[in-house]
């Protein structure tokens, strides 16, 4: 398994968050999540401007064998969605932490989010492999 990017925060639902300089956060799913889902064929994105509470369904990622909800790791307003995913959902497979980002949000209160640092997430992944 490749090394986890150190500048990101992670959730138990295998999502990642990146804090941007303007105060927004970018959200995607982790390499572990994309590998478990397999080749993605479709991503259902929220509407720009949608207001979400932490834990709300934010997006749906669909592979040839499964469809999974992506939950908002933090409450806030959707600023931007990665519309490239409509034609190229496999970007999530090939570059989950980069071109495969899903949503950019203006968070209400990032401290309230249920996230962990890379070490804690690595520990969670290790425990799953046992």
């Amino acid at each position: 398994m490749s090394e986890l990017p150190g500048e990101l925060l992670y959730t138990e639902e295998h999502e990642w968050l990146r804090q941007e300089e303007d105060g927004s956060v970018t959200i995607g799913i982790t390499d572990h999540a994309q590998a478990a889902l397999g080749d993605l064929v479709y991503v259902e994105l929220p509407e720009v401007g949608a207001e979400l509470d932490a834990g709300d369904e934010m997006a749906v990622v669909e592979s040839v064998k499964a469809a999974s909800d992506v939950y908002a790791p933090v409450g806030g307003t959707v600023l931007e969605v990665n519309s490239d995913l409509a034609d190229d959902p496999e970007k999530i497979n090939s570059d989950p932490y980069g071109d495969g980002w899903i949503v950019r949000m203006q968070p209400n209160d990032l401290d309230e989010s249920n996230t962990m640092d890379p070490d804690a997430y690595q520990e969670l992944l290790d425990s799953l492999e046992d």
Partner: protein
Amino acid sequence: MPFIPHTDDDVKAMLETIGVDSIEQLFDEIPKELRIDELKGVPEALSEMEITRLMRARSRQDGVPLCFIGAGAYEHHIPTAVWDIATRGEFYSAYTPYQAEASQGTLQVIYEYQSMITALTGLDTSNASLYDGASALAEASLMAVRSNRTAKSSRILLAAGVNPTYEKVAAAISGSQGLHFERLPLDKKSGTTNLAALQGDRQQAVALVVQQPSFFGTLEPMDKLTDWAHANGALLIAVVNPTSLAILKAPGAWGKNGADIACGEGQPLGVPLSSGGPYFGFMACKQVLVRQMPGRIVGRTSDVDGKPGFTLTLQAREQHIRRTKATSNICTNQGLMVTGATIYMSLLGHQGIARVARSSQAATARLAGLLSQIDGVSLLFDGAHFHEIVIGLDRPVAPVLDALAAQGILGGFDLSTHYPELGNALLVCATETKTDADLEAYQAALGNILAKGKTRCSG
């Protein structure tokens, strides 16, 4: 594929594996008040001999009447080959195949069916069918709400000519999900949707449903209605008669951008009337909406050796994968009816279906001419018709239908219950199965009945 039920030992082993005491426990999450202990009104089981005797007696009651009722189900000639082939052992199952490795033939039939439905509707994608025309409209309405999230509305407009039974079924199926249906007024002169009423409608609607031909057999101005829907942020749902599509403009070509979803009753395509069922519903849509389409879809693919093959596709929308978040709880199709319809369409071809449509339209036009000669009969709507017309009688419809039935003629569908504003109105249909002698027999019988009534009144 044999169907092998689980033995008691199998059931016990499975329950033990998942740590549950009884099958009953698996349903614990369903609230008590929603559960039904017994089905009231269902009689005791009968033996094979008893049920055969009962069914023979019932089928004798049907007789062989001369049928002029349409109203959603249509008597067409069905080539003998259709059900001869469909009832072969290889096809004879209502079951939808899950296992591509064991059911290539059935899957290919459904794939061909889907291709034919897309050809008829002029749309991109078809599913493997639904239960019937009415439930297909309910599913199309739910699909429109899922697809048109920007409308933030659950208001669905229905043209006046949408089958009233479809409205009832759609409201019953989707009402608990918050959808509400509103009827548009009928233009009583033409028997089509009153366009002026539409212009005044300013409240956001998620979809406009129009039936073409309408329940009255009239032809709606589909280009205008489709463009109105799109200009007002609504999807256009077409309820169509598949036979008519061989001669009318396909929903995909309506207006500037075409209908978004087309659905309807598939029965006219080779399925016998059978006292009301089983029939099948069809549904097609634009490519962009396919992930919101309910039901099964068969796709063409290639196997590991590069040979073409068929398989269920886009299954992540469906209940067995998406559970409660599935697009619909439809998880099957009307496999056997669709097999019959596919064979029917294959045997007739596009030209054959067009001939059926034209002959039916011509028979109805001849019937309209004959009936309008009778004193006490008027034709209600001007303008173009497909294979149904509405006639007005000079007296209540029901007793007249009874008198016709006594002479072995099913005279039509009494509209006065659903459309009291139309007065003593009767919906009449003649398909290609009606000869000139049949039409004249109907004219003579109706003429006699109405003449007799008059004598008694004046005498």
